[in-house]
């Protein structure tokens, strides 16, 4: 059963990873992805907005899809919302399996889907007071589409 959370506070990657193998000996590997806030163009902060309720449903649905497609022993998705500074983590994806291929593929699948299949929106803030909504990228749609062809 996947662990899915939306939260303002930072996450503890070591604790999240330890939870995936605690008390069991059938986990052969854990793949991870951590998305960080870049400070491009002098960015002072990212503000992440989401759709409470739908976000949790979408994340749970995406995680269930990963668990149906790969033999995972566990799966964790933590996505932050609110104000995030350059260098800070935004999102964590962990996938555990008996063997590496399933863990690595499921991790890549989940992070691609997070870009296009969950209701989050990023607003960039700059030191001079300017702000700008991040636009969706065609390359993200293409990255998600490759999993549909598989």
């Amino acid at each position, binding site marked *: 059963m996947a662990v899915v959370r939306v939260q303002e506070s930072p996450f503890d990657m070591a604790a999240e990873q330890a939870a995936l193998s605690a008390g069991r000996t059938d986990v052969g590997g854990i793949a991870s992805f951590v998305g960080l806030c870049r400070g491009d163009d002098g960015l002072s902060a990212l503000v992440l907005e989401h759709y409470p309720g*739908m976000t949790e449903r979408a994340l749970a649905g995406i995680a269930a899809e990963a668990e149906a497609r790969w033999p995972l022993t566990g799966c964790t998705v933590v996505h932050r919302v609110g104000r995030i500074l350059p260098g800070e983590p935004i999102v964590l994806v962990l996938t555990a399996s008996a063997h590496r291929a399933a863990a690595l593929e499921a991790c890549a699948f989940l992070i691609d889907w997070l*870009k296009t299949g969950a*209701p989050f929106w990023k607003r960039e803030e700059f030191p001079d007071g300017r702000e700008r909504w991040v*636009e969706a990228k065609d390359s993200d749609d293409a990255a998600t589409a490759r999993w549909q062809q598989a």
Partner: protein
Amino acid sequence: MQVLYFAWVRQKVGVGQEEVSPPPEVTDVAGLMHWLSGRSAGHAAAFANARQVRAAVNQEFCPPDHPLRPGDEVAFFPPVTGG
């Protein structure tokens, strides 16, 4: 019918959510967008380029021709940018 707005759609409309009672001829998502556009200058600005606006009905992503029923929760927002 409860309507929610997010990101720049919310900023242009001016509120995050509102209760609306569209007339019977509004039967799908595209029709609701068109009808909402007439409520204020902010709504009109938000829906001026309808192809940049995505929708969810009862918290599921939906295309413009998705039918609507009384009591549905409908949300409008730009393409998502999470991850």
